[in-house]
């Protein structure tokens, strides 16, 4: 099969590249130094070898994976709503001066409030813990997305509007064929940054709020990755703390990489030749 052959070829190329080896060696050196520091008692962070043992145990623990599931669900729910609300809002602000004048000042006052400052208010206002956490996650992604959409739409070159108008485009044509595609690259940037923030926020929100009401499965461990870390800390399991931290790093990386890939698919004109 050509697909497999291509993949094999690509893997082979990767193994030959200096870039790959530079990264690989750096990672190995980091882990080795960490191990030495832990064994020598310089650092109280558990050694990588101990973390691997714990991770191996957790792999078979459904409640660990349930934490993954819960956090992922919250991040994506908050993120998707942020996209659904943020993109039209940003576009409307970019297109209509009046709308911009009304909404932007309010937006700018709310924007500097860190999403985590909303946690207590969110817990009070939303009926369930789950919704409160999703709301805070939503806020984390929302501002970045809106700002990027506004910026993207406003920096579309005037010549494109003039050319479109000159060729007989209606206002709707200009919106659909110029403003919308012209803003897509900025939407992709906003989404990629936004989902990173959503991951940062969800973890902290889970810690503060105690993991939410969905933590029925596996007891307290079912409250998402943030609560998983907090619970490990309270329970004195330091290796689990590290596993939790790395899990979040991996989750954030996968989300951003997936969005970047998706972004490349919707902006074929920006692809490197």
């Amino acid at each position, binding site marked *: 099969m050509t697909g497999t052959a291509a993949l094999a070829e690509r893997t082979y190329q990767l193994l030959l590249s200096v870039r790959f080896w530079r990264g690989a060696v750096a990672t190995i050196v980091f882990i080795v130094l960490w191990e030495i520091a832990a064994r020598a008692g310089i650092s109280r962070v558990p050694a990588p070898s101990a973390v691997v043992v714990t991770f191996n145990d957790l792999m078979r623990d459904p409640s660990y994976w349930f934490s993954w599931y819960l956090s992922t669900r919250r991040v994506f729910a908050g993120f998707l709503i942020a996209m659904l609300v943020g993109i039209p809002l940003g576009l409307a602000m970019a297109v209509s001066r009046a709308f911009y004048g009304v909404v932007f000042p309010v937006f700018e006052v709310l924007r500097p409030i860190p999403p985590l400052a909303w946690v207590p208010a969110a817990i009070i206002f939303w009926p369930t813990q789950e919704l409160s956490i999703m709301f805070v996650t939503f806020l984390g992604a929302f501002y970045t997305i809106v700002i990027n959409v506004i910026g993207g739409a406003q920096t579309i*070159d005037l010549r494109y509007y003039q050319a479109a108008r000159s*060729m*007989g485009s209606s206002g709707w044509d200009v919106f659909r064929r110029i403003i919308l595609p012209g803003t897509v690259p900025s939407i992709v940037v906003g989404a990629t940054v936004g989902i990173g923030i959503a991951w940062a926020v969800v973890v902290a929100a889970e810690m503060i709020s105690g993991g939410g009401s969905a933590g029925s499965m596996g007891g307290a461990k079912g409250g998402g990755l943030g609560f998983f870390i907090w619970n490990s800390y309270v329970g004195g399991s330091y290796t689990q703390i590290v596993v939790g931290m790395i899990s979040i790093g991996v989750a954030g990386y996968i989300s951003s990489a997936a969005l970047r890939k998706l972004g490349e698919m919707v902006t074929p004109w920006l692809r490197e030749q």
Partner: protein
Amino acid sequence: MRRPSKGEIRIANVVKIYGSEEVGIRAVDDCTFDVPAGKITVVVGPSGCGKTTLLNAIAGFHSITSGTIHLDDLMLCGPGRAQADPGPDRIVVFQNGALFPWKTIVENVAFGPIVQGRLPRKEAFDKARRMLAESGLHNLESNYPGEISSGMRRRVEIARALMNDPKVLLLDEPYRALDSLTKSVMHEALLEVFDRNQVTIFFITHDLEEAIFLGHRVVIMTTRPCRPKKILTVDIPHPRDYSVLTAKRFREYLDETVEAVHEEALKAFAAGERER
């Protein structure tokens, strides 16, 4: 061969002041000249002299302060109508190009007829492909503008303009960013397009050789405020090719006008007009 009998632009007493009437910048002052139908008229002047202001007024991107501009019998702008409506009868080809980067070449070229609802999508694409083939660009159809050279982009843009069957093409220093070798290729390509379509061309440049090589009529502008200083009829028959550049007649036209242009360039320089 299509030969539109119409497509004449008459510019009469046009004034454009940016800012207020008293303290504003007078970009165009009492400017009067004709752009004959089915001919190439080249407007020459130093950078920033106000010639783009004139083009923008014809295209309908900017208003004028007073005067009138007619396209055939239609008053584009004048008393009671400060700004013309942009329309597909006058298509602009921009200085830095304005192909939509998110559309492929063929999508760009098919844009006009589709948004005007003149042709169904499929027919518009077929026509666009024919248009590209005519200009020798058919192998670029599915590329994005960012993937082709800037010289090719200009040719695609002219093809896109012609898809609208415009009466007038407005070209704003379209070859400015190109190197001189590419430029010479572009000139011949443009003349070829002109010979095929006989559309009225309004061409702006600061390059006198380019002006005389391309134009039936060359209008040399004074620098800010802009108005015609000298109008030259270039009596070298079309179709022209590059041998014209070394012809005696061509050199004579150059001799006749170079001083006028240089004078304005000096004035512009003294006034501190910068290259934009």
